[in-house]
């Protein structure tokens, strides 16, 4: 029976930052384990909501991003342990544990310095969502969202990549949620604001699962009914293209809208030529009374 237009499902892509330099991982020995447990429980919580809900997890660090759980893992293989847990959940748990172990063991000893490739992982997530949308049965609807879970520092080195991801997500109606464990992330905050997602910096790490369940488990259409933490004031500063620093006032290329903190005669992005800076802004004002 071809059923049309009935099912509404929701796809959750979790971007899981496993960068070993995150303080919460290095400071406490068992903390990473706790975060992993929370992610697994939260994943199962999501699958529990609706029978058609889908899940993907992408792990990332500064060297690589890879799928921890994706549609390839959906063929449920019984675990052989019958302890009352729903077979699918047991399978998901086993898969995540296995794949994350594999992912971590593949991590080379000399990781490239720098922050986790969160923007790249988000891009992967968007591609994945796009593919899932294409493969959807005709007439079905799917709410997709990305949850970024990270404890990394805020940095603007991936500014361009982030912006591309955010605006693509906005165009594709993908909501981006961000849960940071340690530091406030200005850029990701902008992403949440642009795509209409929720942003939360967990006040304490012990109750991570409960925070996840409260704020990020309800799917976006339901969120307007529930009272959730109010949106924080977003820092909308842009990063300049030359030094990747957040600036309040800067120069913008009139051709391609690239942002620079200092004047340069040639736009590095589109190679447009500019004349030397025009008269300082005070001069025209002086001219006016003469006229």
């Amino acid at each position, binding site marked *: *029976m*071809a*059923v*049309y237009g*009935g*099912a*509404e*499902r929701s796809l959750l892509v979790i971007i899981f930052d496993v960068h070993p330099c995150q303080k919460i991982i290095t400071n406490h020995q068992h903390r990473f384990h706790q975060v992993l447990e929370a992610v697994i*429980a939260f994943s*199962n*919580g999501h699958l*529990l*909501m*609706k*029978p*058609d809900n889908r899940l993907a997890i992408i792990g990332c660090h500064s060297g690589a991003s890879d799928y921890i759980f994706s549609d390839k893992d959906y063929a*449920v293989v*019984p675990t*052989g*342990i*019958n*302890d*009352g*847990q*729903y*077979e*699918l*959940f*047991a399978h998901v*748990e086993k898969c995540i544990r296995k794949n994350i172990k594999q992912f971590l063991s593949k991590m080379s000893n000399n990781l490239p310095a720098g922050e986790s490739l969160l923007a790249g992982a988000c891009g992967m997530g968007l591609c994945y969502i796009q593919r899932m949308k294409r493969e959807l*049965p*005709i*007439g*079905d609807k799917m709410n997709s969202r990305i949850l970024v879970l990270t404890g990394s520092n805020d940095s603007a080195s991936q500014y361009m990549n982030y912006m591309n991801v955010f605006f693509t997500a906005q165009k594709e109606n993908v909501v981006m949620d961000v849960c940071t464990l340690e530091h406030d992330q200005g850029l990701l905050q902008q992403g949440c604001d642009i795509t209409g997602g929720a942003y939360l910096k967990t006040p304490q790490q012990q109750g991570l*699962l*409960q925070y996840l*369940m*409260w704020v990020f*488990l*309800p799917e976006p259409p*339901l969120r*307007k*009914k*529930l*009272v959730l933490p109010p949106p924080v004031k977003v820092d909308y500063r842009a990063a300049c293209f030359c030094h990747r620093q957040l600036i309040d006032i800067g120069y913008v290329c009139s051709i391609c809208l690239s942002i620079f903190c200092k004047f340069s005669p040639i736009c590095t992005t589109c190679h447009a030529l500019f004349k030397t800076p025009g008269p300082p802004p005070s001069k025209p004002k002086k001219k006016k009374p003469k006229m």
Partner: protein
Amino acid sequence: MVFLDSENDSSSASQSASRHSNVNNKVIDLEDSSANGILRHKALQCANLYEYLITLPEDVIDTLFSYPIICLAVYRDLPDIGKHYVMRVLFVEQPVPQAVIASWVGQEYSKEHTEVVEVLSKLKVWQEASIPGGLPAWALNITFKKNLKVAIFGGGSSWGCNPNMEADTKARDVEYLDKYAMERWECVLHYMVGSQQQEGISADAVRILLHAGLMKRDDDDGSPVITRDGFQFLLLDTPAQVWYFMLQYLDTVYARGMDLAQCLAFLFQLSFSILGKDYSTEGLSESLLTFLQHLREFGLVYQRKRKGGKFYPTRLALNMTRQKGKSEISSQEGFVIVESNYRVYAYTDSNLKVALIGLFTELLYRFPNMCVGTLTRDSVCMALRSGITSEQIIRFLTLHAHSLLVAKGGPVIPPTISDQIRLWEKERDRFNFTEGILYSQFLSHSDFSVLRDYASEQNCLIWHCDKRRTMVVTKQGHDDVKKFWKKHSKGPISNC
């Protein structure tokens, strides 16, 4: 009391009503139940899981909650907000004040909150508790809480059937199982419409059909014939049919000496199992094995050999609890095309489907691979008379719409057609039934207008006619109006 929509008609209705009230100064209470019964058909009630569970006694529900798999099914059936309520208090070890929970939802959705709270309390998922300080609070049912946690996180005791770990040498693939399940299920449906293929259905299945009221013994020769409910049943989609059928089956479980909770838990375990995987019958009790054989007959499970020790759940069993969101339903393709000229083309060679189409269309041609019918007023009214509703017809047509139509997007049935079908149904609904009390034979117009104005102020005036000085008041408002009238008239010439 009978009323018609238009003004002219209503005066004639009041005439008939006032004729009854010829006895002086008497209020006539017209019972409408008989008229109601004739003109209003009860649509087939297909209860969902929630509606079914709240009919069960409390101790049975408690037993049910001791199975993690049932907790899971109940949880999935909760309204969306309710799911989050439960999730939020799942790890809270003490009762949560009701005011706190109420504050989780925005002001403008407080109505939904009340509904959700009612559902949760009716299902006994949570109970009222008090916390120090005397505030009313909600506490999750302990059994439910424990077993839902087990279902999500594991750590419980093993129950029910285990999947076979070693691969089956003659494993059946999903396609085969789908085909088998549909064959079995259609066998039952065929039997109901009285098609020729009547073999392969057991006396037990017939008994359930009779019990469910989908068929009844013919007055003449005692052979089962389809009833009005049966027709409606046929128009449901397959998962709804299976669920309805299983509910009826569960009704008879006590009589068979089986344990309801165990059967239900087993059923849900099937519905949460993996398609295309074989499960072992080891460790199942005698009564569950019998139950399994019944399920096998209806196509919910596949078993190569009765004593083979393994079985495969089919898609029928898997889809049972998902009433609303059905996505990956069986291999059956849509076959119906509805054109805006009221023609219905059905590409099928199955007698059953042709018979279903024939329920509400006038069949014109029959070809080996398709049949053509037209939706006419007569044919649709005939269907409506036999108890089918317009929604069921439209739903059937949409549900079985040809895949090309669905792929094209837009409305699957031309809006004119669906509107017309609804209008034809509306045609039959021109009567409104309201129970009421007739006040008549007022001595003066002022008396009448005082009482009329009072009644309309109280919002209990159903109908009035100034010329005849008659009015009809709702049953609820009757006492009030009567009291008022007694007070008003005081004198011995009271009208009531």
